[in-house]
């Protein structure tokens, strides 16, 4: 660690060393911008970069190969795959970020309570984690999504409520370690209330390993969302999603290779990018790595 550097500066310096990780970060930024601007980029206006809406049906031009008109081809209803892919990025990233945010909030609060108070609180949270970990993830998510009405919100909540255990365990572990450090005692001695100590003093110091698992969490959420959409339990039709394009591809696997190729590559690259960022970030915050 160099003099005068903050912990985040050190982390960034170490993270930057990996070229792959920087490329992954740029890719994620690019996809996020694409997703945010999707309605401007792909819309049924001649001036738009992709002059088709994601749900513009054109039966005459169904299942067309990639061409200058439809750069990534068309699907079984003649919808432009480029437009659907760009709008699908919106769904994937929304689900990825929101589900992770839910699990981050639930996991941090429960993990903080367990780690800070110990004793009965710790016991209850630990038992709760054990119970949740027993359920095969996809069974639980599929079950919740099917029992309630399948929608974007159901998926995000189901994913968030089933994946908070990793974050909770990390926060709990960090809290057990740092709650006895001098600055925590100082905060307590100066009369700060528990809520203030937990959220102002301890949580910011426990955040780094949680952000690592959040990065993996976004990757996993995107993967599960696409699997759910592929199986027909994702966002309801006709909303475009990478997984739902792939489920159409399954019916036309004999010749419509472009339907299978592009969304698969998009899912793969996005999931890989978040996994790489998480992996490099984990190495960067590891004090043994310098």
């Amino acid at each position, binding site marked *: 660690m160099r003099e005068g550097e903050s912990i985040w500066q050190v982390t960034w310096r170490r993270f930057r060393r990996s070229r792959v990780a920087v490329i992954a970060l740029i890719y994620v930024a690019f996809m996020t911008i694409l997703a945010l601007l999707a309605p401007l980029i792909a819309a049924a206006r001649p001036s738009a970069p992709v002059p088709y809406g994601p749900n513009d049906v054109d039966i005459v031009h169904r299942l067309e190969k990639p061409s200058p008109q439809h750069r990534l081809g068309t699907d079984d209803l003649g919808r432009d795959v480029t437009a659907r892919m760009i709008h699908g990025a919106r769904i994937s990233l929304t689900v990825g970020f929101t589900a992770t945010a839910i699990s981050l909030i639930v996991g941090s609060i429960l993990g903080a309570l367990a780690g800070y108070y110990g004793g009965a609180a710790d016991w209850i949270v630990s038992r709760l984690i054990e119970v949740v970990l027993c*359920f095969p993830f996809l069974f639980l998510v*599929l079950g919740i999504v099917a*029992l309630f009405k399948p929608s974007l919100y159901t998926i995000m909540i189901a994913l968030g409520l089933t994946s908070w255990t990793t974050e909770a365990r990390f926060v709990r572990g960090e809290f057990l370690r740092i709650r006895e450090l001098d600055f925590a005692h100082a905060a307590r001695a100066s009369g700060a209330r528990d809520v203030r100590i937990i959220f102002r003093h301890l949580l910011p110091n426990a955040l780094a390993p949680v952000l690592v698992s959040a990065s993996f969490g976004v990757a996993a959420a995107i993967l599960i969302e696409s699997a759910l959409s592929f199986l027909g339990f994702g966002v309801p039709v006709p909303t475009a999603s990478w997984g739902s394009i792939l489920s159409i591809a399954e019916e036309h696997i004999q010749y419509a290779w472009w339907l299978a190729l592009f969304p698969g590559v998009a899912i793969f690259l996005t999931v890989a990018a978040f996994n790489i960022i998480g992996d490099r970030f984990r190495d960067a915050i590891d004090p043994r790595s310098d």
Partner: protein
Amino acid sequence: MLSYLIRRLFYAVLTFFGITVAVFALIHSVPGDPVVFFTGARGKHVPPAIIQHIRHAHHLDEPLVAQYGWWVRGVVTLDFGRSIFDGRTVVTHIAEKMPNTFLLNLIAFLLAAAIGVPVGLWSATRSGRLAERASAVTFFLLYSLPSFWVALLLMHLFSVKLNLLPLFGMTSDDYLQMSLGQQLLDRVRHLILPVVTLTYAQLAIFARFSKSALTEVIRQDFITTARAKGAAPSAVLWRHAFRNALIPLITLLGLTIPYLISGSVIVEQIFQWDGIGRLYFDSILQRDYPTVLGLTVTTAVITLFASLFADILYALADPRIRFEATP
């Protein structure tokens, strides 16, 4: 050891009740009348008298605590009721499909361990070198590949284009007319693609886990001591490091089982493999709630047993565990 065992069993029983409470809460948090769990999609067309009868037969007219009591009693006696779809008991359905899933997952598990663990151990000893970094990146990319997409590509390549392997199913149509040897070959041919799909992602987990286990061991003082006293590097690795690195792998037994069962839903659905993953999926499509709930509880309890088994093995292998305060 005995006190550890008792404590661990006590926690397992608690977790079991936690599982039953969780599923019970799930049933009762679904908007609408829980009677739909027994009438299924026909709900609206069932005469009130029959609804009343169902309500009484399934104790839905009793207080919530009593309902929970009946529910736990059902789980303990493996009575999850009857499938709405064909009226057979849910347990029969599960027992029928379980061996197929078990076969698929066992092969995938063993393959992933047989390849992943040696590669992980090897890469820990070659940390930072080109070959190690290349293998780490490969596993990382494998881990990020969506399994249903890989399944689609495999089917397209090996079944449609090359016509080498069957597209889906567990046996060919003329299976019963085959000789014993042909039957065996036919089953193996049907197994290849689903097994590959299930295995490749787990490879990364096994490799990564065994790599970090060995790396952790190598950093410890007793390895430094062994080196300092002049033991040959290979002896340090084989006699001291490997044996200690293999112990944490036991926990993977408990950890990968829910992961495998989750994976089965996708793989069995795509390859039309007649296991519990497909049963679960079909039951959800048909709104066959007793089967859905029965399978949810059953798979959770299987995981519970697996992790209990893994923990006991771990305690047998590593004495330090037995003396800690909590399991």
